[in-house]
């Protein structure tokens, strides 16, 4: 537990001192969504129809783009080797890293999403669902993406490979996330869909860090 706390503090500090890593995904998210009304048309009913998909696709891509460098600098500086030879199971520092990464890159997306939803003319009643669905969905996206990042950390240009590996696994989260927002905009009950998102999150939290650790070991030469 002490190891986890020390690792979490360290990860937050490292990220906090590289502000670009925090701002880039957020900036990407806001930019993509503000370009849509300009490109399609500012008609409220049209925007409200595409809004769930636009919000969710933008969030998904923002999370994925932030993950490419998740382990790279640790690998280049030799910290990853230290982590893998330490007497703690790698899941502990990996979990700390994922939590820190989500807190500083995923959570800001969740917090700003109601504003962007409002801009896309979603009914006010659906804005809570936008936040809740992203709150459940983005950690799952972070963890699943981290598996790909761990497997591609040894490669020089892992970006495209990461996308190919990870995007198919993102699809269930995308379908249920955007589905929840659509249902809420149509006035339907979203409890069931959010429960499925929650189940996906529980699955990735419990098994994801193990897969990330295994991926890191494979990348290091085991």
């Amino acid at each position: 537990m002490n190891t986890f706390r020390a690792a979490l503090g360290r990860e937050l500090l490292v990220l906090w001192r590289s502000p670009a890593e925090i701002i880039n995904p957020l900036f990407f998210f806001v930019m993509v969504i503000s370009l849509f009304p300009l490109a399609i048309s500012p008609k409220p009913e049209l925007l409200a129809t595409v809004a769930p998909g636009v919000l969710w696709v933008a969030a998904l891509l923002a999370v994925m783009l932030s993950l490419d460098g998740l382990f790279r600098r640790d690998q280049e500086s030799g910290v990853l080797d230290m982590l893998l030879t330490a007497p703690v199971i790698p899941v502990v520092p990996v979990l700390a890293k994922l939590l820190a990464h989500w807190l500083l890159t995923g959570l800001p997306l969740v917090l700003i999403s109601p504003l962007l939803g409002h801009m896309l003319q979603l009914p006010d009643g659906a804005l809570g669902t936008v936040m809740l669905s992203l709150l459940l969905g983005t950690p799952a996206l972070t963890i699943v993406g981290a598996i790909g990042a761990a497997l591609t950390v040894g490669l020089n240009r892992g970006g495209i490979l990461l996308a190919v590996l990870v995007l198919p696994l993102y699809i269930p989260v995308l379908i249920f996330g955007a589905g929840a927002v659509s249902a809420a905009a149509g006035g339907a009950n979203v409890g069931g869909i959010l429960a499925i998102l929650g189940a996906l999150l529980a699955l990735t939290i419990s098994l994801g860090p193990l897969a990330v650790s295994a991926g890191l070991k494979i990348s290091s030469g085991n």
Partner: protein
Amino acid sequence: MSDSSTRLELVQLGCERDDRMLFSGLSLTARAGEIWQITGANGAGKTTLLRILVGLHGFFEGERRWWQPQWQQDLLYLGHQPGVREELNPLENLRYACALNHQAGDPMAALAAVGLRGFEDVPAAHLSAGQKRRVALARLWLQRKAVWVLDEPYTAIDQDGVAQLDAQMQQAAEAGSLVIYTSHHRVGDGVQRLHLENGRAEVVS
């Protein structure tokens, strides 16, 4: 062959990389209190051998036996890269390494011992290569571990630092640690040397 002072046993260890035999048939017993120097030309497989020893490289034949099942508890491995993140200062880097490795000791004193007094809160990005290496080496001045595996610890270290490191390694061996390191620099007398050349590994001491 094996007794209570044995720390590491290698039996017919061999490793192939990119269709090239780095070494094969490597058998040795390393005991507490010994210093092993691994030499060889660039690309001879020194780093790979160390990575096999600490479990970072899994593709090898033969056997590698540590003295206890929980050997990682009592291992200090310093890799080819110093393991220092530029966003953090030396103290933060060292504290993280200690937390991860369950290594007790006073980080401030260790940094002072490696000549980084006054640099504790300077971002590592502003340190020289030698100073970054010293941040990693500061762990040798904390709680002593039973086995030290050091990959090129002398890289970028100045003359005084080399003498200091020699003394620290000898002191650890006298206190009962097994020290294994790669370098062309010889720590002192009584060092066992393992030389890797043309796919063969031989003990020359």
